[in-house]
């Protein structure tokens, strides 16, 4: 089974159970609808970082205080700031589907999440391949809101990426991303290759999560 279908099934809460045929067929339809409506875009910029004596991480004028991010970026002298979105068409598709059929709507929403992850993974792999030629390696994506990396850092990070202008990604006053199927992340770059750079779920400390892979 394709990875993104597996992921969608996981997001739908099936856990280790197999999805039924009707759900799978709706997943197929949902991906087809999404292919029509999604307009995926990404932006990335490189920044040098310094690890300050007080444990903070400094990117340009921005200082970030987060132990989990610090752990994630250990040994990294620079980062890739990364932003990606599936675009506003996907939000409209989810809203439209919610009006007509909630079962389909939750499926579209799960598939959109899977599609976004897949898109980010493949962009990240591309960035990584280019860096590897220079002997540099990427760490896993790390987003504001993970661990103790405060969601409020999303605002300056998005400003540094100029997300609104470059990919149409904005943030509400409550730090929700709009379009909703979007990601911003910090990706560490170092001279040493560590673990697989695209793992996400497995790195999380919330081991009792019902959506865990």
């Amino acid at each position, binding site marked *: 089974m394709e990875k993104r279908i597996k992921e969608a099934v996981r997001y739908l809460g099936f856990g280790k159970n197999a999805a039924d045929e009707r759900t799978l067929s709706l997943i197929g339809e949902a991906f087809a609808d999404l292919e029509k409506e999604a307009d995926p875009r990404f932006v990335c910029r490189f920044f040098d970082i310094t690890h300050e004596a007080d444990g903070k991480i400094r990117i340009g004028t921005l200082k970030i205080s987060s132990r989990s991010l610090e752990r994630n970026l250990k040994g990294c002298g620079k980062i890739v700031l990364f932003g990606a979105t599936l675009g506003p068409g996907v939000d409209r598709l989810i809203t439209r589907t919610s009006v007509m*059929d909630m079962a389909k709507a939750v499926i579209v929403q799960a598939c959109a999440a899977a599609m976004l992850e897949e898109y980010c993974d493949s962009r990240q792999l591309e960035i990584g391949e280019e860096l590897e030629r220079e002997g540099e390696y990427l760490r896993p994506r790390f987003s504001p809101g993970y661990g103790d990396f405060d969601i409020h850092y999303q605002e300056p990070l998005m400003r540094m990426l100029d997300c609104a202008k470059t990919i149409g990604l904005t943030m509400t*006053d409550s730090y929700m991303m709009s379009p909703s199927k979007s990601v911003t992340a910090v990706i560490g770059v170092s001279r040493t290759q560590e673990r697989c750079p695209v793992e996400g779920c497995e790195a999380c400390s919330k081991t009792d999560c019902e959506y865990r892979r």
Partner: protein
Amino acid sequence: MIRDRLGKELLYFDGGMGTLLQERGLEPGELPETWNITHPDVIRGIHRSYIDAGSDIVLTNTFGANALKFHDGTFSLNEIVTSAVEHVKAAVRDSGTDRKIYTALDMGPTGKLLKPMGDLDFETAYEAFREVAVLGEQAGADLIHIETMSDTYELKAAVLAAKENTSLPVFATTIFDERGKLLTGADVPSVIAMLEGLRVDALGINCGLGPEQMLPLLEQFLRYSSTPVIVKPNAGLPKQKNGQTVYDVSPEDFAAVMEKIVRMGAAVIGGCCGTTPDHIRAMRTRCEGMPVLPVTEKEDTIVSSYGQSVLLGTGSKIIGERINPTGKKRFKQALKEHDLEYILREGISQQDAGAHILDVNVGLPDIDEPALMKEVVQQLQSVTSLPLQIDTVDVTAMEAALRIYNGKAMVNSVSGKQESMDKVFPLIRKYGGVVIGLTLDEDGIPSDAEGRIRIARKIIGEAEKYGIRKKDIVIDALAMTISSEPDGAKVTLETLRRLRDELGVCSVLGVSNISFGLPNRPVVNAAFYTMAMMNGLSAGIINPLSEDMMKAWYAYHALMNLDANCENYIARFAGSTGAPAAGAGSSAGMSAGEGKPSAGAGMSSASREMTLHAAIVKGLKEEAHGVTEKMVQTEVPLDIINQELIPALNQVGDGFEKGTVFLPQLLMSAEAAKSAFAVLKEKMDKSGEVQEKKGSIVLATVKGDIHDIGKNIVKVLLENYSFDVIDLGKDVPPEVIVETVNERKIRLVGLSALMTTTVVSMEETIRLLREKAPRCRVMVGGAVLNQDYADMIGADFYGKDAMQSVHYAQEVFAENAADQEES
């Protein structure tokens, strides 16, 4: 005045500002506008070098200077804007040039997304732009240049703010990608249609692309625009080099393409990101003395939405008529109950059936039509990208809708009555739009084509006085029923033909009026529809869910070679036998979007064997609908609910809680039950039988939270269990929730929040409810919540999933019932 020179001689903008500031030490994330005060010499120096290089129009350093984007505790917006304008003026003085240099107030986007997709109100965006525009005019700017806009809605707010509050010329440019789309999906014709409707002085493209990549876009701009076109490319596509963004098209290469751009027809040229005074100098040197191609009037009738444009005049377009309460009991009820979802479903199902434009009429006596019209238009634009036709006789409602509509709307309607034209045309002039002109006047509806043509001419002539061109008028030839007017069809057809041949104006018709009072109306309607299209009907206002009408439409386009290789016809009808599909009409609304031509036949044989219980447990929506339709012929609705529906729902709910049924399956069953309920409700409405509602529950996604899928899941399930759900939507302020609770004496509220940042407003809502509605219970749910968190913010109940909230609601209302019995 720059207006006098526009389009007559080539005018030159300046080039990039941001990239030059970065070279001079602007940090990533630092607000460039603060440099107006901290580094005035740098800003003046850059302006000066552009003036020396040959720029006629110099942009102030105010791209991000609006209250929504510019958050700086040290400097006020007033200081920033005033100093920015002064810097350009000072640079002009320093340069000693004798050319006239125009100071253009630069207005860029707010960086926020407008509702309904984001959280920014249209009027808040308008206010932010108004503030800057007024400051700019006061400081002495010569024009307002709105640029790098990627959202037509925000663009509209900016243009309206500039035009309504200043007397300055307004230029507007947008940022397109290589596919010819804005980030929010609009294409070139839709952007032009909207901007010309708002009457900007010049429009065009900036940023995003290099000059070479802009060529195909420019071609489209010149094809559709009757307004001078601005082109301001980047110095190529951005590239990453040593972690920096660089643009690498040299001044000479840039200038060479700009010369081509002028030859194609651009009237104002300049540069954006990565361009420098050297680029501008090379461009000016190369283009100096070149003539500007005259701007010609384009005659396309275009309506648009945020995401697409519809061109009237090629083939015949379908305007869906179903969002209209006239003669529809269920629709009237939806309007009275503020059941917007019902209205949205009518819109979506018409889109799925093939409509190109949706008519929107929400007029009922005793209804606040302006408020409702505005709300329905905004909601529809969150689920469909079809352009809308605002259909109302209430001029206040018309203006409210035109103002907040995202795009260039169609308007239904104006008539040949002087009073009507005096009221409607000023609105079209101000907001833009394609308006339907009814061929009737103070003397009524002329009985012959000559009379109707005369009125059409009168309407077109009167519109001209407002500067509204014929292309923005669509004449309604009016169809009178042949049951009382034997010549009715012939007169209408003749009128259509003459509108096309003699007046060269687009036409529209409410087609089905023709058969009023006759049996088997679809037969007459479809035949007349074909005849009308043959006589030049540009757009029919019809029911796209009517199979007969759609057959006529597809066949006409195939026959007239308006459907290349009969592609659309084949796509629609391949595999269909042509035999009448039994019952297709009655279930068309239910199965919209999933409708396969053969579904009707397969369904009925299957449903003969299937019980309603099984259909619900299996989550088969159409089957549940079909079986219930059969059952109500012999059984009492309440028995069906109690003996089949509820037990089936309970079985699925139990499975969900045991972990054998999963969320999608639970919801499929819920949707199946919902489709069965729709049949039962219709039957009960007819027989007068009443099903007791178990109680009223308010549901809302809290303020600041714009995701409502969780709340919607809970809603479907609660409604399945006969609770009356008052859905307040998303981003709901605490006061609105409390007000609704008190007004309608609500005993239970369900709140949803997705993020830690929005749980704060959940807490605030609960606090306010405790204070103002102490008897009301509160259940909460959402991704970030858990029992501890729920306790901390004072909720009565935490529902970890949707079934939990059903159980809690049952508990609360059982207690209520017990209380009432005791008292």
